């Protein structure tokens, strides 16, 4: 049964907007990817991506439904610290900047994050890492699909499953048609749409409702949202920061970009993307804090952003939010589909089952996997079992446990395979325990802390002596 009865957009208008932007993205996907016939071109855009497009794709991918819809949700649940804590997600991009440089330097022929873990730590750690990474990717995919359904439902009353289906189908289509170049090309357009949309929304919001009114309403009705001593929010601060670091450090989404950027571009692209990204959750989150002043009912926490924007700004606001969040969703969904398909094809299919596959065969396998991932995400999105924040933060315990194995593995010769494997297993277990015992706002923090202690202890107790040259695995003959 529906829990939202007050929608601003006519369903017909919402469908027209979705159809127009779907056509635009599919068209652009075809245009950008029309010359990419080789495998390296299809999955890594020929490894020649420049600074402007590199920065835009990193920023647009990190501006997801998580930013545009979860930042307001967390501001609504955790107040000021929720908003600021979310913007600390930028630290993940900033700290990945030097890692991107190191990755490109150590692995000029790499394809996936799995390649690094396999070569650096061996098969056991690699398989644990793959389990974590594929689980996380599915969680993120499902959260993005859910966000598409929640968004269209909140703005127009279109049933959740219909909006979710159409948005997923649109992103699968253009990723299939154009490959990685389509992903980063559309990211560039989408990042412009997102930034312009947010600036217009912030401008209109400040013009229509004052800071004083927002503050007074919060103080009277929801005082803890203004409190800097709210316990859950205090725990959430570093949890979100470490979660973001874990997502970026381990995920193939960011590693494929590090491989695809021209030499010397990765560091600056990630640095600039982090700087441009940081204020976005503050702007998006601020909108949610206006809700008590407006007297708007919020039926579900993950709907607060679109509902307040459309309530405050009427039809214009609803249209801007739909276009902006669709762009944000698409820019992340396509990247995630392409990067996860690549991880599945190269690390599971090629390395485990078809080591002699040709480039043409792997290109087809990548396309089939993109389609299958889309279908799997759709099936998992249908029941809508939880909120966006809870779903995504459940994966936080797992990904945060990879921070130290990845970072120490890139810089320290002495970190060994047993330490890395144990850190990921024990970190994930401890994080999940904390998630259920305390709350979703501590899973990543505990996972990262336990993983760090294990890496430090095992590196000190049984130091290895890794030869960096082993990471320069020659490119496969396809």
């Amino acid at each position: 049964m529906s829990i939202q009865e007050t929608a601003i957009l006519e369903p017909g208008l919402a469908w027209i907007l979705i159809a127009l932007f779907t056509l635009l993205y599919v068209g652009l996907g075809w245009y950008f990817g029309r010359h990419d016939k080789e495998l390296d071109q299809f999955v890594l855009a020929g490894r020649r991506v420049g600074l402007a497009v590199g920065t835009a794709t990193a920023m647009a991918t990190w501006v997801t439904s998580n930013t545009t819809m979860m930042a307001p949700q967390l501001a609504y649940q955790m107040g000021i610290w929720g908003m600021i804590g979310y913007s600390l997600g930028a630290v993940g991009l900033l700290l990945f900047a030097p890692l991107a440089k190191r990755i490109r330097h150590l692995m000029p022929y790499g394809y996936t994050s799995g390649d690094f873990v396999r070569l650096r730590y061996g098969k056991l750690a690699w398989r644990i890492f793959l389990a974590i990474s594929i689980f996380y990717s599915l969680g993120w995919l499902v959260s993005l699909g859910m966000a598409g359904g929640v968004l269209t439902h909140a703005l127009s009353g279109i049933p959740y499953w219909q909006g979710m289906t159409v948005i997923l189908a649109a992103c699968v289509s253009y990723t299939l048609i154009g490959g990685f170049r389509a992903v980063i090309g559309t990211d560039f357009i989408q990042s412009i749409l997102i930034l312009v949309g947010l600036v217009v929304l912030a401008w209109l919001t400040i013009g229509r409702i004052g800071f004083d009114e927002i503050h007074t309403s919060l103080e009277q009705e929801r005082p803890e949202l203004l409190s800097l001593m709210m316990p859950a929010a205090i725990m959430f601060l570093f949890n979100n920061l470490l979660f973001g670091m874990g997502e970026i450090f381990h995920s193939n989404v960011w590693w494929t970009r590090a491989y695809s950027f021209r030499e010397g571009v990765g560091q600056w692209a990630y640095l600039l993307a982090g700087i441009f990204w940081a204020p976005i959750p503050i702007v998006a989150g601020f909108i949610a804090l206006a809700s008590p002043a407006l007297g708007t009912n919020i039926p579900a926490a993950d709907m607060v952003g679109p509902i307040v924007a459309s309530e405050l700004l009427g039809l214009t606001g609803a249209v801007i939010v739909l276009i902006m969040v669709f762009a944000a969703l698409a820019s992340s969904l396509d990247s995630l589909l392409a990067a996860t398909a690549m991880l599945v094809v190269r690390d599971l299919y090629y390395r485990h089952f078809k080591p002699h596959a040709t480039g043409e065969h792997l290109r087809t396998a990548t396309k089939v996997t993109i389609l299958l991932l889309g279908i799997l995400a759709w099936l998992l999105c249908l029941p809508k079992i939880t909120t966006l924040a809870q779903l995504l933060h459940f994966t936080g315990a797992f990904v945060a446990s990879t921070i130290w194995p990845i970072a120490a593995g890139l810089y320290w010769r002495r970190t060994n395979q047993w330490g890395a494997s144990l850190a990921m297993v024990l970190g994930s277990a401890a994080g999940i325990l904390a998630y259920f015992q305390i709350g979703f706002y501590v899973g990543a923090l505990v996972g990262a802390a336990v993983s760090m202690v294990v890496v430090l202890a095992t590196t000190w107790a049984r130091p290895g002596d890794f030869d960096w040259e082993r990471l320069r695995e020659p490119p496969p003959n396809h």
Partner: protein
Amino acid sequence: MSCVQTLRNLPALPRVILTVLLLPALSPAWGATQETPVLESTSTEARAGYYQLKWSLEDEAGVDRFILQEADSSDFASPEVFYEGADRATVISGRRDGTAHYRVRAVFEDGHRSPWSPPLEVKVHHHSTVQAFGLFFIGGIVFFATAGMIAAGSRAQRRADPEG
């Protein structure tokens, strides 16, 4: 003297028989018809100050709106209308420690009203500040250690390979 005290004063056998017979009447659902809305909360003890209330009617034909009341006490001596409208849920956040009581009723298009739902109690009990700052401190250590390790590693890489 309350019903419960009266029961306690009876001999064992009649007490058991009467308890079994009266059990449905002591239940909050007693007297409920199909028109009585069901009210639920995502948590009865909110440790982060937020929770979602959801309500529904078995047969929603002809429902115009719902009225959700909030009160400090379980007898709803001085209730406040928290929400009135067509939505079937609301998220409450930013609350300080305390207990709130809720009940909901439906208003139909012909003007008649359903009975109130059985009351629902939600307690807000924030985590302790000791626990919060303890985890904050651990998070800070992990973050600064990671950032320090990356900074030191990058510096060492620049020294070893100034061109790279």
